[in-house]
């Protein structure tokens, strides 16, 4: 043995798992942020419903709050009842 690793400093970039897709509500790619935000990342996170559809959290919250009846809060993609995963 001639060489041994003492210390390793690595670099990793994190992305959303749904990265290749775009948000069903605002049509922006998940890689980018919702139209109300300026910077993607922690400040504009994604959420998944039980139906496994992801949205920008700002987009889905806006959608949900625009729904009249709380009971009828549905996923805009599949019309199942929306529940956060």
């Amino acid at each position, binding site marked *: 043995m*001639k*060489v041994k690793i003492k210390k390793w400093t*690595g670099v*990793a*970039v*994190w992305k959303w798992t749904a990265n290749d897709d775009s948000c069903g509500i605002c049509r922006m790619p998940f890689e980018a942020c919702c139209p109300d935000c*300026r*910077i993607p990342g922690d400040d504009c996170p994604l959420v*998944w419903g039980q139906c496994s559809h992801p949205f920008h959290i700002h987009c889905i919250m806006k959608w949900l709050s625009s729904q009249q009846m709380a009971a009828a809060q549905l996923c805009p993609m599949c019309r199942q009842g929306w529940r956060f995963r």
Partner: protein
Amino acid sequence: MLEVPPLHIQTLLSTFQAVHCHGLEFLLLNGCHFCLDVCFQLDSIDPDLGDLDDEEEAWEEEACTIRPRRLKRKFLFHTDDQRKKKFAPKMDVDGLLDPENKRNSLTNRNGVHKSPGINNTKVGNAGARKLVIRNFKEVKRLSGAHEVLSWIDKPMKLTDDYLETAWKSLYEAVVAIQQSKPVSTSKEQLYEVVENLCKFKMAPQVYEKLLHLAEVHVSGSAERFLQYPLYLLLYRNVIQHCRETGDSETLLRIMDKAWQAHCQQMIMIRHIFLYLDRSYVLHTASVASIWDMGLDLFRVHIISHPKVQSRTVSGLLQLIEKERAGEVVDRTLLKSLLRMLSDLQIYREAFEHKFLEATDELYAVEGHQLVEELDVPAYLTHVKRRLKEEDERLLHYLDSSTRLPLISCVERQLIGEHLTQLIQKGLEILLEDERLGDLSLMYTLFARVKEGLKELCTAFAAYIKKKGRTIVNPSDAEGDRTMVQELLDFKDCMDSVVEVCFHQNEKFVNSVKEAFECFINQRQNKPAELIAKFLDSKLKAGNKEATEEELERLLDKVMVLFRFIHGKDVFEAFYKKDLAKRLLVGKSASVDAEKSMLSKLKQECGGGFTCKLEGMFKDMELSKDIMLAFKQHVSNMKNVPGLDLNVSILTMGYWPTYQPCEVTLLPAMVTYQNIFNKFYLAKHSGRKLQWQPTLGHCVLKAYFPQGNKDLQVSLLQALCLLLFNETEEIGLEEFKQETNIEDGELRRTLQSLACGKVRVLQKIPRGRDVEDGDKFVFNKAFTNKLCRIKINQIQMKETTEENESTHERVFQDRQYQIDAAIVRIMKTRKTLSHNLLLLELYDQLKFPVMASDIKKRIESLIDRDYMERGRDDPNAYSYVA
């Protein structure tokens, strides 16, 4: 009268004393006359209104001791009510007490002031105090005076021939004075004769006679001056002499003598006829005072003679010219003659005009000649000296009314006429050599003439632009490297010039700014890039030349340059790339400096500009926290390879985009990496991690026969080195297979290990470049002084690639920005002509764009149906909703 301030009384008193000393007895008498009147009035002041203080009382006392007998006479005057009434309003005590007037009468200038303000109305008020005379002694009168005095006491009838007799004595006296002979009658008597004549309303006749007498004398002397053989001879000689030697002084001296004599005579005459001057003349508007009459006669009969005048004036001019040529001349003579001209009120017509013409001519010639001969600093010093000389001339003999035209004439001829030439010839050299003293001189001189500073400012700006362009567009790559430092030095230099020499003149400060902004943006993008790189080099660790304060100052200066840059996005891209490198490799010199730079940028360009940069710092801090938690997590696990792992986790949007690449890690490393992945994803659901092997780095412990070393290397270098644990000799192909590193990258990595400064590998065969089929062995003979060695990656090629990609990205971003701006504008305007759209775009966009680029973007937007061409006007666009 009641408000006579002590100062006036003092002046009066000292005047009397001065006159006394000079032996002009009768003036003193007259003076005392008024003085006592003042005294009397002061005494009669209501004690409530104003107290005589000690000083004034002392003066009163002194006045009494000087001429007690006048006092007595005065006393008599005031006992006689009628006389007093007659006398008091006529007295121009106010004018007399005016120090200005007093001085005038001493310096033989204008005569009596016809001052309208006779405000001694309170004289003789009720409650007048008794005048106490201390140390009073009766002095025996002269017989003549006695006689005259007796008229005053008892009413007197004048005989018909009184005028004749009286005038005869006066005539004799005047003629004696005119011939500079002693006057036989005492002047006091003469004065009283005049007084009497006036009182019996014979003033007009006396004035007439006096005028006639004076006129005859003056015109006679003028004729003598011109025709008398001796004078003529002298005169001719003088002219001859003047022509031969240029000496005009003798003529001037004669003139001066004549003038002085005339003045003295007129003063004497006036003193005798003072009463006339103050009563009849003062109240008759049509006649001039005796002094003015004298001046008038001199003007009309002597100086207005064309020959005399022209020769005097040309003599004066010659004398002044001589002085200007550096000779010493009699300034008192000049002063006296010029004073004469202004007293005669022909200074302006007769002298000033010609003088200014001569000056103009002289300096025009001198200016043209010296501008050619001398270099600029010498010329400027010369001009400064000239101005000083002229100033002295004004101080010493010229009339102060000449100041404005004279100085402006010199300024115009010596500076104003040569502005362009001086600037062309000298400014650049002065600035180049940083001759601050000469530059300040130039500024102060140019500030004197109209347009001077404007021209200087324009030339200054032009110089900055010219010099700046050569800095910004260097002929070789070497210049690029030093460009920013040169720019900083240049800016420093110009700033100090503006501060020291140009007095921080706002125009110059602005023109420096404008000029810098202009030339720095003439070369697109490169300066912005170089400024970012310059900052990188200063903020990198290992740059220990500067203390923190120095660094801070330097950053401030760089910010000034940054402000001039139009394409700030280019700067941001490069700065971001460099900052990322500094943060990831841990090369940043000081977090404080980084943060302060960030806050400066934020201040300059707003939060939008720096939010990504701030995000990078945030990422680094978050990563630290995560690593702490991870270490704790690992310490609770079993069967973990002993490896010290630190991971920086980056948020996509903040950092520059890195090309993903896959390499084969050692199994131990892969295990460890997976442990971390699991740990991280458990904490943050919905995410995935993409590792960037190109950015990672390691510290390796290497065991050499000569000693053990710590090697600080990149992850790729580490991977290559780790392969030597298994075998002795590895070929290029094997490396490729084992590590899966991209070919170009692998070659560079191996080159850095085997052909760089620090050679831990040996290449077979030897050579600078890595070729196919090359083999590598571990360098057993490796030695190095240091214990911890950093092996640099070979950057050259990478940088050009990076550079291009950074530029590429910037241009891409710009395209989006242009698109967005066009759509924004069209959305608000609905329809807009091409040119107006361009105008608004240039306004909105913060980076330089070319019209052709914009056209392309408009085409593309039309293709994408964001807008369309106007149906009627092909040069207009309309927005498509």
